[in-house]
């Protein structure tokens, strides 16, 4: 983990409710896809944890949904403004287990952390398939970005307004060697049930510090108590214990 001041270089809408923000600064602490950053905002006591969409040594890009006062404040920020950010938080995805043909499954704001993962897996020569799930056509983002990486992309919409009608699970076809997923808990549960291989799940929980100090985001797993922010957000299929 590193603390640093970042300068906003881009903050633009991808959909009415989803924005992409590029931040320039020392991002060297980001070591794995699926990690997150924690952003301090004026007037807000707690930082805002947001998963990393893409990063290199000098920049980090996030895609966030406007849901509350914090993200609403972020949506009104302009290029040139500065932010105090903790980077390199969380374990991130373990790429060593992917096999030759990994499947990446993202739902809604669970899509962004899969981008850097796909990029790195493809760079390793893996045959990457991606399934993106959204409620409806107007909420779709990043389809082109994944295609541009060379991934095989299919999109599912709950209302059938685009791509496959239904949930991401309706778009899952066998043949993948391993899977990585991030999205709302009902989606994760459905994937847990229907998936034919092992895989990794990225979880969300309301966090205090985001770096393991406060125990605010603990969960029970087969391998003991874990902190979503520090021992997670990524858990392996075999260790998950779903909340009742």
């Amino acid at each position: 983990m590193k603390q640093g001041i970042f300068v906003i270089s881009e903050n633009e809408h991808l959909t009415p409710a989803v924005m992409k923000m590029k931040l320039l600064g020392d991002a060297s602490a980001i070591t794995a896809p699926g990690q997150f950053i924690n952003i301090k905002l004026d007037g807000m006591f707690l930082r805002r944890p947001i998963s990393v969409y893409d990063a290199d040594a000098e920049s980090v890009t996030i895609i966030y949904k406007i849901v509350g006062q914090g993200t609403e404040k972020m949506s009104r920020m302009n290029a040139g403004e500065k932010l105090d950010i903790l980077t390199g938080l969380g374990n991130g995805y373990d790429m060593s287990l992917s096999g030759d043909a990994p499947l990446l499954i993202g739902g809604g704001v669970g899509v962004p952390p899969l981008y850097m993962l796909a990029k790195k897996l493809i760079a390793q020569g893996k045959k990457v398939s991606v399934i993106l799930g959204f409620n409806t056509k107007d909420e779709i983002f990043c389809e082109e970005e994944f295609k541009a990486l060379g991934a095989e992309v299919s999109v599912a919409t709950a209302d059938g307004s685009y791509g496959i009608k239904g949930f991401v699970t309706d778009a899952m076809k066998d043949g993948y060697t391993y899977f990585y997923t991030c999205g709302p808990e009902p989606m994760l549960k459905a994937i847990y049930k229907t998936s034919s291989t092992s895989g990794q799940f990225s979880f969300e929980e309301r966090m205090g510090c985001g770096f393991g100090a406060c125990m605010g985001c603990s969960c029970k797993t087969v391998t003991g108590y874990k902190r979503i922010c520090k021992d997670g957000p990524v858990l392996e299929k075999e260790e998950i214990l779903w909340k009742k």
Partner: protein
Amino acid sequence: MEKMSVELCGITLDNPVIPASGTFGYGYEFAELYDINMLGTFSFKGTTKDPRFGNPTPRIAECTAGMINAVGLQNPGVEKVIGEELPKLSKCFSKPVMANVSGFSVEDYAYTCEKLDKIEQVGWLEVNVSCPNVHGGGMSFGTQPEAATEVTKAVKAVTSKPVILKLSPNVTDIVSIAKACEEAGADGISLINTLLGMRIDLRTRKPVIANTMGGFSGSAIFPVAVRMVYQVAKAVNVPVIGMGGVSCARDVVEMMLAGATAVEVGAANLVDPFACKTIIEELPAVMEQYGIKDLKEIIGGVK
């Protein structure tokens, strides 16, 4: 060169800054960020007789200038703390550490403190009496002088280390409880623990915290903390550790003027993992600004 050292129950601290229990884990994870030997000491995660997962999540709610937490004393239990956590700490922290102890019965407290009494690393026992007393209708030990007295006596009987009682601010008369602890043999008082608070999610119409209510901390509660530290420090003869919303070096000085011998920093660590390092580094400049040569001399110095 300003003098920052203070003495807390016979042990000298290089400076009065102490990360508060529950905001600094067992220390070694913060040691990856900076050399924690620069701290006066720190109070480790609230430890109980048995391992605890704590409360269901969500456990955190944001507030204006603060936060509510309802972690529920998640900890591996005193055996594992002694067997696994403290050995890890000893590799990166060479000073006496403050052991924070919680319990749900007088026997719990005594059991845990007796175990920790044997550990050389432990300099002080900070006994948190803000937890519900399961044999006392769930009211917290810290809300009744009698219960606080019982706990204090039971703990003093099993340890030779200084015992500091950590008090809850959710009471009508904090002074009477502090005095009861002192009379029962407490070597120090630390306050304030969190205020009981609640937030409701307007979207779901449910409490933000799964446990409905939780402990409210952060800079928002600082004025209540200063007031109680002032009232208690005037009333007792043992040292007082001030805490509650401290987030900068100026707050440390204000707490000491109110009567604090040392100052704990809590929620600020969760927003900025370097908060205590920054405060310690800023202290000399703040002392100079206000003409303070020796921090010891301003303890209780409010006119």
